């Protein structure tokens, strides 16, 4: 049984300018100890997926559809109170915004302790001692002293690592990390990825890793899900995604042309920009939403939405004209 099974997840925000369907239909499974990377352009709904799994989009203007199962148990049926016991303990999240995700009025130590006090039944003193260990674990020097620091006294990278310390504090079953390495320089980033790997190896933690950084994906992910406009358009083992991407969008992201070199000045491989505009998230027409930007588009593509098809074992793609063979 999968640790996490997301089925037909749909998230709609009611806004003043009408509905925003941030996630249209997302399904994926995550096995024990697996690292799945979620990749896609800005605004395709990655963070929304991340936050709807532990039901953190609490607002009244949010409509959730589909189901999320943790070890086979449907979380959508859980009361808010039962969800609280899951959050931070079974499922934890590292948020995308390191600068604002910590409370400016509390010390780093008390913010890490809070989750330990909530779930681990530790004394205040034991929680603080554990918080120091966690800070050391995420590579913050002088942890004993930093524990008394307020967030504004720390750099963005350090705050991000404090967030990671909070997320891993209770050894979660599932860790959802939303661009956890964006604010970090390359050495520290490698350290953070090491922490994730160790969690996976030692505790069997399953990780959903959202990132723009293809180097990170290649480095750590077992599988990759490519998202476009609120849907997963291609999902495959990491090796297959890099060796034989089949969806035109994936090929675009990975940089189909050699001239669009994906090596950047800072040595990181990033997603390549694809010409054309992202479709409006307010409607969900029955067609392939990539068609206006797709070189392979045909009449069929705008007549009905392509369903997910298996092109190889564990490799699915939603496209009428999937490319075959390796990229040049």
């Amino acid at each position, binding site marked *: 049984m999968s640790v996490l099974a997301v089925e037909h997840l749909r998230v709609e925000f009611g806004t003043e300018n009408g509905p925003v369907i941030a996630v249209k239909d997302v399904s994926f499974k995550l096995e024990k100890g697996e690292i799945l990377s979620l990749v896609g352009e800005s605004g395709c709904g990655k963070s929304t997926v991340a936050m709807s799994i532990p039901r953190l989009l609490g607002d009244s203007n949010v409509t959730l559809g589909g189901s999320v199962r943790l070890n086979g148990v449907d979380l959508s049926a859980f009361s808010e109170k039962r969800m609280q016991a899951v959050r931070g303990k079974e499922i934890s999240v590292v948020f995308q915004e390191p600068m604002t995700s*910590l*409370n*400016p009025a509390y010390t780093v130590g008390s913010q890490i302790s809070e989750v330990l006090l909530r779930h681990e039944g530790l004394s205040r003193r034991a929680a603080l001692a554990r918080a120091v260990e966690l800070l050391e674990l995420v590579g913050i020097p002088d942890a004993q002293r930093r524990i008394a620091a307020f967030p504004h006294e720390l750099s963005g990278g350090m705050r991000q690592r404090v967030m990671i310390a909070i997320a891993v504090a209770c050894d979660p079953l599932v860790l959802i990390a939303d661009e956890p390495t964006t604010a970090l320089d390359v050495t520290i980033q490698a350290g953070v990825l090491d922490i994730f790997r160790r969690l996976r190896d030692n505790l069997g933690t399953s990780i959903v890793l959202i990132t723009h950084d293809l180097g990170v994906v290649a480095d750590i992910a077992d599988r990759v899900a490519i998202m476009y406009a609120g849907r997963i358009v291609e999902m495959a083992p990491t090796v297959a995604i890099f060796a034989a991407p089949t969806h035109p969008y994936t090929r675009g992201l990975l940089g189909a042309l050699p001239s669009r070199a994906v090596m950047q000045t800072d040595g990181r491989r990033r997603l390549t920009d694809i010409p054309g505009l992202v479709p409006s998230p307010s409607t969900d027409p029955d067609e392939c939403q990539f068609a206006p930007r797709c070189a392979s588009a045909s009449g069929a593509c705008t007549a009905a939405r392509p369903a997910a098809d298996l092109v190889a074992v564990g490799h699915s793609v939603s496209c009428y004209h999937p490319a075959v063979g390796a990229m040049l």
Partner: protein
Amino acid sequence: MLQQVITSIVTLFLASIVVFVGVRLLPGDPALVLAGETADPAVVAAIREQFGLNQPIWIQYFNYVGQALQGNFGVSTRDRIPVAEILLQRLPITLELAGLAILVGVLIGLTAGIVSAVKRGSFADYAANVFGLIGLSVPHFWLGMLAILFFAINLQILPASGYVAFTEDPAENLRRMILPALVLGTGLSAVLMRQTRAALLGQLSADYVRTARSKGVSRSREVKHALRNSLTTVVTVLGLQLGALIGGAIITEQIFVIPGFGKLIIDAVSARNYPVLQGAVLVAVTGYVLVNLAVDIAYAYLNPRMRLAGGAR
């Protein structure tokens, strides 16, 4: 912190000049008032001499400040009782009224603000907002009359006026202070309610509240996270409202015939009792400045970023 203290001292110095000069700009000659309208010019001159009223105003000022710093505010021109004695007798009364009003204002305002923000869109939120609007727009004297009409005359459960010292009969003192404190505190609670609601609503949607949520804490702890960051606003608003509170206290004391500072000032104005008026206003201003200093300090305590900037670490 040092900077705030220096600012307070400078403010006090300037305020004392304004008060001193302002009191002298009032129409009417205090020497004449003392001596009586039909007095002999020689008597008037003697009184001028005795109270130093014939000296240049800046000498009068420095004499006065020098004495005031030693706790000597002169004597009342009416009954020759030392002003300091009068002030010491009246000050606790106003302090009690203001203290109770702040208590009422903070209790009601903070509670209503928190409830209406947390239960946004509920009936409680709606009711709190209506209360906030009414509380803001109703003047003290009108509210005071209504309170007297309703509680003292219709229901006859609370006295309409009069004052009993706390040291004499604590229960009776409180019973008589309830209405004035409610009347004076209502405006404050309305302002606090609105500001607390607005600040808390803003903070509740902050990213760090979502982080708290992701740790699995209860809703009330989430609110606690947000509230901690809203309190700086609340404290600032409280500080800004103190001026209005002092003004309101003067009116409230008149309505309920409470012999506090407000009544003292109004009586002193109509009697052209310079020394009393001056001493009372000066002490009131000092109180105002000190409270603002306390607000600044509380603000720094609540906001770690300020603490760093203030160099208190």
